């Protein structure tokens, strides 16, 4: 446990906007928009999730909020300031764990020391924080090893631990758990939660929906540079009301035709997303859907390999929002 309040200057307030984005657009090549009209607000003290598959625009959004790139158009305010004009002032108050590797070409311990020095942390305090973080993130045994010699997961731990060396008001985490094992992943998420309780605001990108469910207060699903849905995690899960999800795999025959007929029969209020011989069916009438599946499988001699009815999860919300990588046969 880190026993220094990293965000002692901040207080938790649900209505104080920390990040305000309005109609943000950004293009790297003037042909395709990596951000295409994105609008959202992040409030002080909340964990805001940006969910999306690879290339959806999450990292571009993080880069814009952390002043690394300037959006092509739209309005962005971070901590009440304009990143285009007050970049340095903003950066003094934020922390960033970027998606890619980032470390100095020296030992693990020195990486933390150098970072503390760069942020102007007094030497004694820097040493104290370094020891706590080395211990917390399981880096004590490798503290004398060079950062480029350690494993990918260990490097990630150094990167995350290092960011907690300094104080901040907002922490941007761009897929911070990639390469971490389950225990370290949980350690990281719990550390973040702990700091959030002390008033830290967190913007967190991930494509791991369990993590988002565990950590985030609100989340936006982003795809092709657009925000598809944005709400609290609970509301997102309730988005489809009494709907249930049926996972179905057909063992033999023409699965595509089978699912196509099934989709037609189930009609409105149901979404059938097909991927090979499997389908995810989102329906508000699971009983009727099950009877149709049974009837149709008998009529077509289709053998059902897997059938499962379950409550919606954040993953279903995500899959429904962005498609499944498969073909959606009907809309709710």
């Amino acid at each position, binding site marked *: 446990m880190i026993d220094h309040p990293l965000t002692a200057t901040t207080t938790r307030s649900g209505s104080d906007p920390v990040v305000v984005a309005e109609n943000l657009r950004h293009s790297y090549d003037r042909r395709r928009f990596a951000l295409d009209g994105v609008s959202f607000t992040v409030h002080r003290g909340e964990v805001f999730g940006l969910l999306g598959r690879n290339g959806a625009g999450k990292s571009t959004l993080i*880069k814009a909020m*952390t*002043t*690394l*790139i300037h959006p092509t158009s739209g309005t962005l305010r971070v901590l009440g300031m304009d990143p285009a004009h007050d*970049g*340095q002032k903003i*950066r*003094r108050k*934020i922390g*960033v764990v*970027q*998606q*890619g*590797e*980032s*470390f*100095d*070409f*020296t030992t693990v311990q*020195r990486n933390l020391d*150098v970072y503390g*020095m*760069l*942020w*102007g942390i007094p030497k004694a305090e820097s040493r104290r924080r370094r020891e706590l973080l080395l211990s917390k993130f399981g880096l004590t045994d490798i503290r004398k090893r060079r950062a*480029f010699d350690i494993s990918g997961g260990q490097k990630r731990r150094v990167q995350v631990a290092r960011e907690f060396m300094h104080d901040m008001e907002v922490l941007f985490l761009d897929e911070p758990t990639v390469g971490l094992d389950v225990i370290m992943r949980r350690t990281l998420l719990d550390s973040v939660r702990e700091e959030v309780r002390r008033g830290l605001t967190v913007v967190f990108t991930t494509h791991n929906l369990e993590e988002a469910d565990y950590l985030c207060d609100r989340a936006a699903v982003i795809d092709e540079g657009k925000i598809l849905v944005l709400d609290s995690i609970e509301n997102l899960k309730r988005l489809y009301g009494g709907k249930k999800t049926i996972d179905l795999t057909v063992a033999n025959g023409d699965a595509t035709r089978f699912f196509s007929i099934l989709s037609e029969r189930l009609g409105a209020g149901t979404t059938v997303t097909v991927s090979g011989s499997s389908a995810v069916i989102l329906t508000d009438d699971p009983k009727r859907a099950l009877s149709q599946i049974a009837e149709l499988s008998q009529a077509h001699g289709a053998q059902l390999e897997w059938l499962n009815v379950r409550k919606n999860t954040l993953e279903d919300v995500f899959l429904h929002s962005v498609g499944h990588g498969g073909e959606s046969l009907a809309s709710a």
Partner: protein
Amino acid sequence: MQVPNVLRLVYRNILVNTDPGSLIILIGLPGMYLVFFGFGFQSVSSAAGAGNSYLTYLTPGIMSFQVVMAGTVGGSMLWADRRWGMLSQLLMGPFTRLQYLFGIMLTSILFGLAGALVMLGVAYLLLGSVPTGLLTLGVIFGSITVGSIFFGALMLYISALVKSNTAYNSIQILLIFVVNFASTVFYPLSSGLPIVLKVLFQVNPLTYVSDAVRGAYSGTLTPTDGYQMIVLLVEMAVFLFLATRAYMRSDVSYE
């Protein structure tokens, strides 16, 4: 009292670049040149026109050579920071792009001056005496400073332009070879040189640094050394501008 950002960056650059391997290359290599070439080429010292001691002739040359090493330190630091993700990380921290650039330039100068000082120390051990006059040392280290900024800016400019580390390293190796051996670091400009080489010697900024340092070292400064230094100052300003512009326009965002 808060330490200025640029100085923090310089301190960081020194900390992460002073591992034994880097120091051997930065100081050990020129030191070895001084020892091996200094003694090895003693037999041709009369041809070099430096009195009885080639080592005396070579010492200011090797001190000047430090400006090229300093330049490569600057360029390599930028590439290393890009490659290991620290450039974007620092620029998402409390630093501006210009502070980062000046941090690298200042580090290059410090490496150039420290390297030249170490070479002076090595020369003292080998020769038993070196010039110690304030004006002499002022000219020597002033020239080293200007040369370090020039080569730092040149390497940063190249570093900001090329798209791969391999390309940067290849250019750097070629440049070090040509700049060092087509200069007056190791031998004087002789009338017997082919015209192309002669021109290369005369337009090579390292020749200007080497001539000025050698002139001050041996007490034989001429007006030509002064003119060459003015040209070097102009070139330094041009490359500093080009490097700053190229770097400010370059993409620093992480993958």
